[in-house]
């Protein structure tokens, strides 16, 4: 099949038989559920834009398997140009949707596995890379969305997997048969899980010999028997159940996360990419984490939306020419473009792995993600400063539509003459959505913890900087002889 259209993607999801729970009840129609659907529409944009000539140079690539034109989200990076285009694609889609579009994590899992399965086969004589390439061809030919599932619940953080009171708090192998392996456990915070055709599971951290049953990587169809999804709540999520769109802020798109429970799920051997080779778990985590830290390029695009919203709010209030407002907008742009520098730099400084896959510069990817844990918060603070308190004290759309109260809201929330009051309210709701509503899940807390919490990046930065060279430079300039 060539690349799917957005409509074909939606139809393909309707054919899945997912077991999804939300608010204590089974969701029978996942695609049309009013809380989930905006997140599906955000993923659908990754399909829609790939078919538009003005975006195809970024959104598509030539498959290294057969040369076919494929969606970049299923591509294995073949050059630093590919890596740079991946960063640019993140910004494009972040700005297009104003939220998490969920598909980057599967791309990052595929690329990390392309590197590590190759290395395993070279060193162990295992069959994993051959299996992986067959699986990759299936993903590319069918233009699938994959969930990259890494984060285990982890239980008591001071204990390794094999010492946990409940062994299931890390995904592990519970049985091995002629058909494959049987796995149990869960993956937390799974972005876009119920909008995915496939779930690609990876270990959550480096493993030791005692934890060999936890060193496991595999792919499953998202509706494989034994998988249950429990949708996470988001601030203001039930506004999507209300009449009207204004109070949602983002009237078109959204994101979702889910706890993915794997209860004795059979994984056929042809879908197993790591089975107890504990020495490679850490390598897979590091490769995936570096790619995924680069993927936070998307926050630059969401930042573009927030900056545009803040500027619009300032213009509606007729304060855009005030010097302090102009300076705040400059600061927001400075911070946002600083984020962009990091995701472009780690891609430009990428390198070729033995498998032929290009990997990002790990140090710079970690620096980029560390910036992402901070700067969106400051950008949001300034946006709220410019927006004013009305963004959190505004009555509902129902009050605006009410014949009793609407006239008062129209009268007292009018600002600059020619601007319709409802537009002022729309832009304030969008700022609310991005900085403390449903989209803040992605723009703020996911920026903090997604792809690893801040301390994870600091550990990598400490490990990867060339401290010896820095010391030599300093000692040389002040006359210290080499020790």
């Amino acid at each position: 099949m060539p690349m799917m259209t957005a409509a074909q993607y939606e139809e393909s999801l309707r054919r899945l038989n997912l077991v999804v729970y939300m608010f204590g009840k089974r969701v029978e129609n996942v695609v049309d559920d009013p809380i989930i659907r905006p997140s599906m529409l955000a993923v659908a944009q990754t399909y829609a834009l790939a078919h538009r000539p003005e975006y195809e140079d970024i959104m598509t690539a030539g498959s290294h398997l057969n040369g076919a034109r494929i969606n970049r989200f299923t591509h294995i990076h073949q050059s630093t140009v590919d890596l740079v285009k991946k960063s640019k694609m993140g910004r494009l889609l972040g700005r297009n949707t104003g939220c998490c579009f969920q598909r980057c994590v599967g791309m990052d899992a595929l690329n990390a596995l392309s590197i590590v399965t190759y290395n395993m086969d070279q060193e162990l004589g295992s069959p994993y890379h051959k299996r992986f390439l067959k699986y990759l061809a299936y993903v590319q030919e069918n233009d699938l969305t994959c969930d990259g599932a890494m984060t285990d619940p982890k239980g008591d953080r001071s204990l390794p997997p094999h010492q946990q009171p409940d062994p299931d708090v890390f995904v592990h192998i519970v049985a091995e048969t002629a058909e494959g392996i049987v796995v149990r456990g869960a993956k937390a915070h799974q972005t876009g899980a119920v909008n995915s055709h496939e779930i690609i599971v990876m270990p959550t951290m480096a493993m030791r010999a005692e934890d060999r049953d936890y060193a496991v990587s595999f792919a499953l169809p998202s509706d494989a028997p034994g998988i249950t999804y429990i949708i996470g709540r988001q601030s203001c999520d039930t506004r999507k159940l209300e009449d009207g769109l204004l109070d949602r802020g983002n009237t078109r798109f959204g994101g979702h996360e889910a706890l993915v429970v794997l209860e004795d799920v059979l994984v056929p051997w042809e879908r197993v990419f790591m089975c107890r080779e504990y020495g490679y778990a850490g390598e897979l985590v590091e490769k995936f984490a570096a790619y995924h830290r680069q993927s936070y390029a998307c926050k630059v695009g969401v930042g573009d939306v927030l900056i545009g919203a803040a500027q619009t709010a300032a213009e509606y209030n007729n304060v855009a020419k005030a010097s302090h407002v102009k300076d705040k907008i400059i600061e927001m742009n400075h911070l946002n473009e600083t984020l962009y520098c990091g995701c472009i730099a780690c891609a430009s400084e990428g390198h070729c792995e033995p498998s032929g896959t290009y990997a990002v510069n790990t140090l710079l990817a970690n620096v980029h993600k560390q910036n992402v844990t901070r700067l969106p918060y400051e950008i949001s603070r300034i946006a709220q400063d410019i927006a004013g308190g009305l963004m959190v004290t505004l009555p509902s759309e129902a009050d605006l539509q009410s014949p009793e109260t609407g006239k008062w809201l129209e009268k007292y929330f009018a600002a600059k003459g020619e601007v319709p009051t409802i537009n002022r309210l729309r832009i304030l709701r969008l700022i609310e959505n991005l900085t403390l509503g449903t989209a803040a899940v992605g723009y703020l807390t996911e920026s903090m913890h997604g792809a690893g919490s801040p301390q994870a990046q600091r550990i990598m930065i400490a490990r990867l900087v060339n401290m010896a060279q820095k010391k030599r430079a300093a000692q040389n300039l002040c006359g210290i002889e080499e020790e």
Partner: protein
Amino acid sequence: MLKVALKYCGGCNPDYDRVSAAETIQRRLKERVDFVSADSCDDIDIVLVLAGCESACTDVSAFENCETVFIRSVREAERNVAAILRRIS
């Protein structure tokens, strides 16, 4: 008739409306040149690449055998339309 193809960059952060610029180019050169698909690489005289910014990172490796002109702004679009009109007059 001169065969001209239009090719977009990926549009990650364009400084101008590339689609609108393309429409203007097509309108200005209507019936003066033959607009062909950028996919028909063997049968193109000039590729006008609508790059959204100065980095102009568009992949033009498929067009090694034709003349490639990068357009990075509305002004450059106007300038290149004028150049093509001069060339065919």
